[in-house]
């Protein structure tokens, strides 16, 4: 069952100007309910434009976007409802914090949904716990928090709306390795607890490879491929040709295969690489 579906989705910037640019070119796509989909593509590949169509921030030049089987583009009421159904966390979300307290900031989305006080309170506290913000932090000003805490508070603000689809644009950018791991753990936990669909946009194949059930690769406004990670990474040379960097281990395995070792071509995590090599060594000895 697909939660988001696009049909011939096309978006053109600056139509009728010299700066005309096709950002999305006839995109047909189905996103399954409950999956984690990694979205990859270099800057200008159309991935940011694509995700902003999913919650109606952008309107297709032609083609349709269906969320939960419904085309919401024409109906203002539905457009608002879709914002709550599809939650979007932008890159560097900490720059959107504005309330006096962290509590109020996380409550901003739920409040706009016109939920009652009790429900709002439940959601704020639950999400704060989920992202690892202590209850005493909730009464602080968001501007007093550390960089990592700010990021988590901002993500909590969208998670508290409990959207059926959560989209995160580069959720870990600018963070150190520990902060990065933490963010991905939170996303994984949210996915497990709420069972919602999650889309993660990232430049980092390593990060995507760890989490995603399927990977969507965008290139020049078109879908390059959309498949499970092994199938995507087995095309690593093509990925490098379109300017994407594949994980280091994938490159190492490609090099080993060029030397004629005949190893699997779909290796993209350290763990999997270790497993493959150990099995191979055991077999031989």
């Amino acid at each position, binding site marked *: 069952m697909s939660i988001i579906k696009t049909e011939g989705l096309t978006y053109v910037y600056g139509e009728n100007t010299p700066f005309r640019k096709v950002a999305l070119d006839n995109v047909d796509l189905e996103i399954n309910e409950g999956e984690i989909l990694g979205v990859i593509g270099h800057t200008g590949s159309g991935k940011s434009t694509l995700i902003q169509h999913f919650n109606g921030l952008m309107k297709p030049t032609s083609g349709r976007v269906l969320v939960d089987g419904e085309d919401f583009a024409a109906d203002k009421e539905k457009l608002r409802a879709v914002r709550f159904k599809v939650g979007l966390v932008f890159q560097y979300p900490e720059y959107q914090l504005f309330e006096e307290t962290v509590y109020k900031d996380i409550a901003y989305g739920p409040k706009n949904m016109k939920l009652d006080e009790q429900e709002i309170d439940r959601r704020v506290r639950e999400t704060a716990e989920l992202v690892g913000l202590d209850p005493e932090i909730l009464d602080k000003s968001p501007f007093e928090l550390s960089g990592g805490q700010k990021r988590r508070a901002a993500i909590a603000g969208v998670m508290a709306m409990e959207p059926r689809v959560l989209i995160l644009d580069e959720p870990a950018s600018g963070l150190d390795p520990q902060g990065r791991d933490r963010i991905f753990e939170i996303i994984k936990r949210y996915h497990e607890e709420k069972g919602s669909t999650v889309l993660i946009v990232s430049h980092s194949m390593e990060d995507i490879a760890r989490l995603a059930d399927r990977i969507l690769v965008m290139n020049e406004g078109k879908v390059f491929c959309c498949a499970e990670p092994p199938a995507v990474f087995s095309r690593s040379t093509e990925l490098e040709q379109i300017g994407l960097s594949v994980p*280091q281990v994938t490159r190492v395995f490609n090099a*080993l295969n060029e030397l004629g070792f005949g190893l699997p071509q779909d290796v993209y995590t*350290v763990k999997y690489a270790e497993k493959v090599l150990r099995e191979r060594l055991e077999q031989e000895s």
Partner: protein
Amino acid sequence: MNNFIQAKNLKFSYINEMEEPPVKTEVLKDVTLDVKKGEFLAVLGHNGSGKSTLAKCFNAINIPESGTVTVNGLDTADEDNLLAIRKSAGMVFQNPDNQIVATIVEEDVAFALENLGVEPAEIRRRVDEALKTVGMYEYRLHAPHKLSGGQKQRVAIAGVIAMKPDCILLDEPTAMLDPRGRKEVMDTIKQLNREQGVTIVLITHYMDEAAQADRVVVIDEGEIMLDGTPKQIFSQVDTMKNLGLDVPQVTELCHRLRKAGCNLPADVITEEECVKALAQLLRKGAQP
């Protein structure tokens, strides 16, 4: 003496005057570090470890609370040395948007030279040269806000190298860039280091960038924890992980296989080394 930057028992705290009484946060505790002339040094550490603060001590933006920092023999605490220090140790920051001053690329590159009162003809010559070095000459008349992140950072680097500094301090210059931009910036840095002998101090939390340096320093809670070649540092996989840092994937792979009893070198940090070591291992495995 070929130490370009010398920090001796450097201590630095931020004081938040907004609070009553003012709150003092100690960021650097007793740091002693030398940076050699022509060296490519990477400084690793997680957010809040004090690595950016350290970089700002190297060009007299931060003045030590106690201890001394000298740059090219000049004490950073002496006001009269300010311009000379900043001229010889230029700095590039994380956010490309917040360090470009002018509305035209070449005007921005000229900014530092204009401040230093260099002759107009000489400015012109050096600006063109700097833009060519970073490969942005064809963009000299563009508006900075229309460039990509990597291009903006290269303009910022050009603005620094136009001063003909002996050293460039880069504070997470690639943190906000995509892989393509990161590569552009890293290539530029390495080229400056190799071809022009510019001393590089690169603050980063990308392990693969640090692996390309001559020397890596790991800083944690305002203290230097590790100091050595990339091989020496990254081979300490468990220590790095405890410090909240990472190691390159290839290092981790070899580390895991070693733990499982495979005969592999401990100091694999590049893909080529990894391929070579694994190939050897697999071949040996094939001959009982």
